[in-house]
C-alpha cells in the first residue's frame, strides 16, 4: 500500500513537470489535464506545486486574463527541467520493464 501511495505521488510529480515543459501553466489547467486521464485528489496538486516551487523546480508569476481571476502560472526552471528529464528517463525504463513482464507473463505470441 505504501508502495502504491509513493508510486502515485511520483507519477503526479512527473505529470506536472512534463505538462509545464513546453509552456507555462496555471494550477487549474494542470489539475484538469491530469484528472482528465486518471483519478486524483485534486486538492493535493497545489501542495505538490508549492513543494516543487520551494525546491526550486518552478518559479511562479501572476498573469491577468481577459475574463476571470488573475492566474498563477508555473514556469519550469533549469533545475526543474533537469529533474524532469531524470524522472522521464526513470519512468521509461520502468515502463518498458513492466510491459515486457506483462507480455511474457500473459504469453501473447507475436503470431
Amino acid at each position, binding site marked *: 500500500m505504501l508502495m*502504491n501511495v509513493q508510486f502515485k505521488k511520483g507519477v503526479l510529480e512527473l505529470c506536472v513537470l512534463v505538462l509545464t515543459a513546453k509552456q507555462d501553466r496555471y*494550477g*487549474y489547467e494542470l489539475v484538469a489535464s491530469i484528472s482528465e486521464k486518471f483519478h486524483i*485528489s*485534486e486538492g493535493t496538486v*497545489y*501542495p505538490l506545486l508549492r513543494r516543487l516551487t520551494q525546491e526550486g523546480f518552478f518559479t511562479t508569476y501572476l498573469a491577468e486574463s481577459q475574463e476571470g481571476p*488573475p492566474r498563477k502560472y508555473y514556469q519550469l526552471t533549469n533545475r526543474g527541467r533537469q529533474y524532469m528529464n531524470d524522472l522521464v528517463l526513470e519512468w521509461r525504463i520502468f515502463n518498458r520493464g513492466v510491459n515486457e513482464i506483462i507480455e511474457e507473463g500473459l504469453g501473447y505470441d507475436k503470431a
Partner: protein
Amino acid sequence: MTRREFMDELNALLSALPDKERLDILADYTEHFLLGMKQGKTEHEIAEGLGSPKLVARELLAGYRIDQAQSNASVGNMTRAIVATISLGFFNLVFVLGPFLGLIGILMGLYAMTAALLVAPVGIFLDYGIPAPSQERLFLLFSSMVSVGLGGMFAIGLLRLTKWLYRQFLRYLQFNVKMIRGK
C-alpha cells in the same frame, strides 16, 4: 460542501501558518473555484474534486513544519515537525516516534557516560590529597588525565553526533511525509 465552507475550513486548519503563506495558499484554491465555476461546474462539484480540506491542510502543514525545523534548528521546531508528521497517521506513531525515542535514549546514555568521565577525576583528586605511595599517586594522576581526555573527546564527538542526528532525523521525516502524502 460550498466554496465558502471549503475555504473557511481550510483557513481554520491553516491558522498556524504565517498570514502571508496562508493567504497565498487560500488564493490558489480561490482561483481554482473561480476557474471551475467559469467552466460551468457547481461549487459542490469543485469541492468534491478537491477532496477533504483536512487532507490538503495536513500535507501543507507537514511540509511547512519540516521546512521550519530545517531553516531554524531548535527543539521546539523539531517537536512541531514531529507532531505534524505524527498527525499524518497512526503509522507514524510507530515509525517516527519509536526511532526518535530510541535515539534520544542512546544520546542520553552517551551524555551520561561523558559526564561520568569528566567528573571521575574529582573523586580521584579527593583521594590524591591523602598521602599515598608515590607510584599510586602517579597512577591516579595519569588515570585522571586519561579520564578527562576521553571525556573531552567524547563531548566533542557527541555534540557533532547530535547535530548530525538532528539533520538525519529531519531527512527521515521528509522521506516519511513523501511516503504518506500524495495519494
